[in-house]
């Protein structure tokens, strides 16, 4: 395991020295700035949104705050996915093709330790990144609306879990695919997960059981999506009535709570992906 720690430290140092973090921080600050500007503008008009409409018990501020928080969660997951993919897309085959991997693999650390080290490094970076960006979006929405989500920590942890799943998938892909192909595949899987989430919302809206089942199966097969949906649900877990229904039907709402089984499945999923990656890596001629 000490070999894994060395590899993780090496991967983190590489990110620092290649100025990956500087670029990421600058672009994230730009994103948060735009998000803050948009949020402030949205809440400037939230009052007009309620006046003159006969919409009963609608909590307009709550609806807009939940939507902005959902948007923030989506953006956080998307940015974390970009980070996860670029930190791992060439970890095995890409590095082997460039001749970077061979000097490391012949050392006594072992191939599995190398994979574990790369996973720990990328998942740690993504976790820290998700935590910071998620906290930033919460603060921005709170500053503009005075509202906090119904659950603060749970959605953040769900996003961190989702990013870890994506890291595991990208690392698994790096064993079997070239770096470019792996990046494409991972982003397509991310897109498939998002489509499944939207299908779920549509299924809920029209009451289609079969569509809902398909969407649910996809989100279980790609548990980062199920975790994301669970996070969205937890954001507005206490919203009820007309406002709650509107939020759930919106693009950033979800009627599907997570729970210990989902968390357990996500952990098992990461372990299975890791085991498959280790198996494939052990059999790969370099």
């Amino acid at each position: 395991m000490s070999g894994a720690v060395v590899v993780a430290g090496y991967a983190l140092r590489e990110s620092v020295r290649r100025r990956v973090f500087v670029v990421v921080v600058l672009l994230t600050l730009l994103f948060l700035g735009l998000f803050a500007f948009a949020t402030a503008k949205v809440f400037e008009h939230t009052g007009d949104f309620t006046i003159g409409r006969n919409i009963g018990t609608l909590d307009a501020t709550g609806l807009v705050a939940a939507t902005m928080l959902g948007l923030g969660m989506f953006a956080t997951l998307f940015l974390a996915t970009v980070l996860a993919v670029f930190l791992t897309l060439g970890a095995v085959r890409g590095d082997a093709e460039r001749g970077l991997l061979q000097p490391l693999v012949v050392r006594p650390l072992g191939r599995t330790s190398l994979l574990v080290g790369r996973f720990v490094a990328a998942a740690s970076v993504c976790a820290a990144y998700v935590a910071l960006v998620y906290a930033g979006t919460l603060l921005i929405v709170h500053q503009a609306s005075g509202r906090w989500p119904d659950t603060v920590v749970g959605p953040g942890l769900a996003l961190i879990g989702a990013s870890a799943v994506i890291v595991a998938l990208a690392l698994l892909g790096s064993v079997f695919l070239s770096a470019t192909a792996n990046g494409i595949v991972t982003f397509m899987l991310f897109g498939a997960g998002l489509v499944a989430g939207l299908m779920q919302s549509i299924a809920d809206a029209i009451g289609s059981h079969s569509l809902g089942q398909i969407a649910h199966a996809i989100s279980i097969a790609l548990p980062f999506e199920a975790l994301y949906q669970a996070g969205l649900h937890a954001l507005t877990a206490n919203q009820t009535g007309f406002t709650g229904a509107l939020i759930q039907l919106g693009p950033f709402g979800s009627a599907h709570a997570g729970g210990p089984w989902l968390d357990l499945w996500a952990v098992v999923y990461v372990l299975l992906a890791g085991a498959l990656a280790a198996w494939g890596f052990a059999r790969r001629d370099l």
Partner: protein
Amino acid sequence: MPAALSVSSLGKRYGRTVALDDVGLEVAPGELVGLLGPNGAGKSTLVKIVCGLVRPSAGRALVCGAPAGSREARRALGYLAELFRFPGWARAEEVLVLHQRLTGSDGGAAERAALLEQVDLLQARARRVEAMSKGMQQRLGIAQALVGSPRLLLLDEPTSALDPVGRRMVRELLERLRERGVAVLLNSHLLSEVELVCDRVAILSGGRVVAAGRPADLVHAGGVEIETADGVRRFERARRDEVPGLVAELVAAGERIYGVRLLTSSLEEAYLDAVGGRQDEDERRLTPDDAVAVPRGEAS
């Protein structure tokens, strides 16, 4: 003490392509063995199997008694790949620190300084890899392979990017390693280099060992050239101990002798014979039994 490297009945297939077929090879501690062969002969595949990068299809390879690819085997060896790269952002010393950690070497700064000194990179210890020439990177690769004092060193074309000074430095380094008991398997296209430093040579062709032995055993007698007033006369099959008799015969026949030269084949000729290549100088050996008269002006 087990052999530093023991390879027996080793085979490797890539689909229908046979990369190695029934290869056997032993390298004793402190022995320097050269691996020769044309492109695609299986040299790099053999080296990669020994260091655990490639899995064999048949046979086995033992490194200091441990199966190739095992942790014990990897602990005992140092490896310089033919096509390798270190991260451009890393400094020379950082590369060695990383490999010290991965190897579990406790040599610290003293080991790093000694290794960099050996490959003449001590002054460039703080330089980034991306700012180094190809030759410097190759020398850093050699230093990296020596981290942790390996008992078996696998060098795949270690001098391909080096200038003559760098090559000489590597030769001297290999000789020092031999004195310290380090076994070396040297894969190189440079026959002269292999001939200069290696105790033994194995020639691979088509995935098989087609010749093996000491360089002096692989080369063979090439006859005698005697320069006379009429030109150079060659005695293709003559040996050294026949020279006095040949000279006496020529003198008795009224020839005037200006010079005598013993001919031996080079390792390159032995190599080309072994791998089935054509020699450029075949015409020199057209008459096997008798002397060939060459006009004096054409003698070289």
